[in-house]
């Protein structure tokens, strides 16, 4: 028997890609449904249809959108300030002395578990600010490290070249350093965007700001409301995918401007 849709004969690459994505999604939702039927216990697992229905129900409420908005804003604030701070620190630490001075800080942030940060900051900050600070801490070492690598990529030979040909100040930064740093920066932003969202929501779950996705997830678990745990988890995944897509598009636009980086 012949398959009604032969993907190999679809010439439009975009359509082919979308079709494959949809088929893969259908396959895994079917697996989920299969497990649900096998377990047959709503306390342990929710069905895909129930989750979808509940998302539509919650989506019609103002509280749902407020929770999403506040969580996104909090984490975004931590993310953006982390990126800015990371770039600043990497630029400052281009000097060897400052690099040695601050190296232990970056090591410390990298080695400390997120949970420890959440617990510590609980003592110092208001609960609304904790996810912001935790997100900030997640981003800083990644951006700092990657941007520093990009800055180091402009070796002495290129600094000498700039000196000989009087390429100084902003011109030097714009034409020499930014193109070298950009691919490292893009990779740091992309990696940290995925991490920051997870860490930010984890911080919300633990410290429970009044209006947040994390608090809703915590409440759902407390009331053994498995369906809502699944729903809020699905919401977190969907937002993460949307943010990832937005960041990817933004980075592509920036990278296009500078094409392939590297020195010859």
């Amino acid at each position, binding site marked *: 028997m012949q398959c009604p849709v032969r993907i190999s004969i679809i010439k439009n690459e975009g359509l082919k890609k979308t079709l494959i994505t949809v088929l893969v999604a259908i396959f895994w939702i079917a697996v989920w449904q299969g497990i649900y039927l096998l377990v047959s216990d709503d306390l342990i697992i929710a069905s895909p249809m129930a989750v979808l229905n509940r998302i539509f129900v919650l989506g019609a409420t103002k509280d749902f959108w407020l929770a999403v908005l506040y969580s996104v804003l909090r984490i975004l604030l931590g993310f953006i300030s982390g990126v800015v701070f990371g770039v600043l620190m990497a630029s400052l630490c281009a000097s060897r002395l400052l690099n040695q001075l601050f190296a232990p800080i970056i090591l410390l942030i990298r080695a400390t578990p997120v949970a420890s940060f959440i617990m510590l900051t609980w003592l110092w900050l208001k609960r609304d600010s904790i996810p912001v600070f935790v997100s900030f801490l997640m981003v800083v070492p990644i951006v700092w490290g990657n941007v520093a690598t990009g800055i180091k990529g402009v070796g002495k030979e290129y600094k000498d070249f700039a000196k000989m040909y009087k390429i100084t100040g902003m011109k030097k930064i714009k034409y020499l350093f930014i193109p070298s740093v950009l691919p490292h920066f893009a990779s740091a932003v992309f990696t940290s965007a995925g991490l920051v969202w997870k860490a930010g929501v984890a911080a919300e779950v633990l410290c429970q700001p009044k209006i947040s996705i994390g608090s809703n997830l915590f409440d759902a678990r407390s009331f053994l409301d498995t369906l809502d745990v699944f729903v809020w988890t699905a919401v977190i995944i969907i937002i993460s995918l949307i943010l990832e897509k937005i960041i990817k598009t933004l980075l592509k636009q920036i990278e296009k401007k*500078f094409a392939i980086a590297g020195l010859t």
Partner: protein
Amino acid sequence: MISIKNLRVKFKDTVIENFNLEIEKNGIYCLFAPSGAGKTTLLNAVSKLIKFEGEIKIDGEISYLFQEDRLLNWFSARENIMLVEPDEEKAEYYMTVFGVDEFADKKPQELSGGMKRRCALVRALAFKADVYLLDEPFRGLDEQNADLVRKEIIELGKEKIVIVVTHDELDLEKLNAQRITLN
């Protein structure tokens, strides 16, 4: 004018001791020395890119063709040249003469070794300077292109001081140059 007195440079494994040089007239000067004797180190010291002891006096600006091309990969050949704010008329002239205009919009990673060298040469020769330091300008060039470059260096030498690092003794004659020896 270039005046070097009692120059002492120690850079990595290279040591230059008590080197003296006086150049007062415009012209072409070929720098000869055995491999590893410090030709590039000397040019780096003259350009004040590395530390040295002694005295180096130069009247005017320097343009330096580095031993490596040092082109920026994210810019086209033309952008690499224009980045250094050269004499635009000269840049266009050298680009045409050296055939760089044929690949002016290509990026260095799309160019052959010889093409990159020609691009770096245009950048160095079109830069407004009084002293031109050319470290192995013919490296990677075929004979036809090397001859074109020699012809332009000869022209440049009529108005400026040009120091050429080369391994080929024949260049002394071809460029009608004077010899500088570094032992």
